[in-house]
């Protein structure tokens, strides 16, 4: 069955006609051509497909697209500001070597954002738990954890957004 769904995507009101069996991941990549969100495992374990819905991280590969009606979706593209200015979390990942091949990065950065939005001063254990749903084959996670620690410092010095 098909339906036109309306929701907010990276701050913009959008609508699209979608099929009932589609997951949010496919619709983001194919209909909206936002290819920052990646397909990794298709089973909710690798986190490459992580996006934020109403600020909460979810695996878009397992999220029936009809459920996004009326909600606010943030993809990695939504973190970039005016004139291509990177979000402080993205900056921190760049500065601290948290990105190698980049495939896990969109999901990893969005999980970091969800974590820091809820807990601005996470301990190392809390950071590890916060990214426990995002797999990285390149970095060994050390630089990713450093990036998130740095991002937390940067964000708290900027004051509340």
């Amino acid at each position, binding site marked *: *069955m098909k339906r036109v769904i309306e929701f907010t995507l990276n701050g913009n009101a959008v609508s699209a006609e979608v*099929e*009932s*069996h589609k*997951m949010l991941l496919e619709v983001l990549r194919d209909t909206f051509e936002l290819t920052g969100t990646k397909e990794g495992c*298709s*089973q*909710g*374990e690798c*986190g490459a497909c*992580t996006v934020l819905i109403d600020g*909460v*991280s*979810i*695996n878009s590969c*397992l*999220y*029936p697209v*009809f*459920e996004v009606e009326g909600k606010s979706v943030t993809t990695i593209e939504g973190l970039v500001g005016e004139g291509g200015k990177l979000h402080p979390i993205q900056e921190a990942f760049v500065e601290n070597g948290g990105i190698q091949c980049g495939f896990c990065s969109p999901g990893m950065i969005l*999980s970091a954002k*969800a974590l820091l939005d809820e807990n601005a001063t996470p301990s190392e254990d809390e950071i*590890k*738990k*916060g990214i*426990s*749903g995002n797999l990285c084959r390149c970095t060994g996670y050390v630089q990713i954890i450093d990036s998130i620690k740095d991002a937390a410092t940067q964000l708290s010095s900027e004051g509340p957004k």
Partner: protein
Amino acid sequence: MKKFDYYQPRSLQEAYGLMEKQKGEARFIAGGTDIIWRVKQGLIEAGALISLRGIEELAQIRLNGDLALGSMVPFRTIERNFSLAKAYPSLSEAVSLLANPQVRNVATVGGNLCNAAPSADCAPPLIVLDAMLTLEGLGGKRDVPIGDFFKGPGKTCMEKTEVLTQIRVPKMAANSGTSFLKKGRVSQDIAMVNAAAFLVMEGNVCRKCRLAVGAVAPIPLRLTDVEGMLEHQEISAELLDRVAEKVEQAVSPITDVRSTAEYRRVLSGVLVKKAIREAHQRAVQQ
């Protein structure tokens, strides 16, 4: 992926009506983190999925001494509920160790139970806490003790047209403690073995004991014979060693990608011992 229709009823009555119209070609879906994956693999055939997400009455929590937990409350909510963590630590711990944050943000206790994996993390705590499950459908309502719910790997006593609406947990007695332990290869892994304990203590004597293990039998397993070893006994290191031996005999683990049967057998004994010690400590701290 196979195509399916997707319905979003706003009430239970609407949901039952949709299920009836579909004449057995539909499945109820909660968070979807188990079902969608199995549909993708072709393990489930469903012409339609009927989502329970929009049914508000299923997402209520009432904690008032005892617990009435709506089946559609996401793990995310349970993890962050400090009163629930204080009242029923084993349930809260099981939820916070399940899968990963993204899954926990949409997945539910109801879904975890209905999926009926032998390794279901929510099962051992709810078994030792004597949970009662409410099943509803067009035919009416029935209460099923959790001990009668699981029938085999992936199988429950539910009709396909029924919905698990509520999980009720009685108030914990004074001087009682409960615990949950899980061992996986890595943090978001399905359990190799998980275990829960519930003890009511009188001084150093155990007055009531409930023990359950998962991932080592066709269903999450209550260890009734082992419980009998502890009741009316003082908890000693020697008794716990004998308990561990009995647990090893009581389980029937398999070898699979996550672990071997031999390791699981030994691990069952170890985790149950640890769970008892932790529940004991919590009981006396009360």
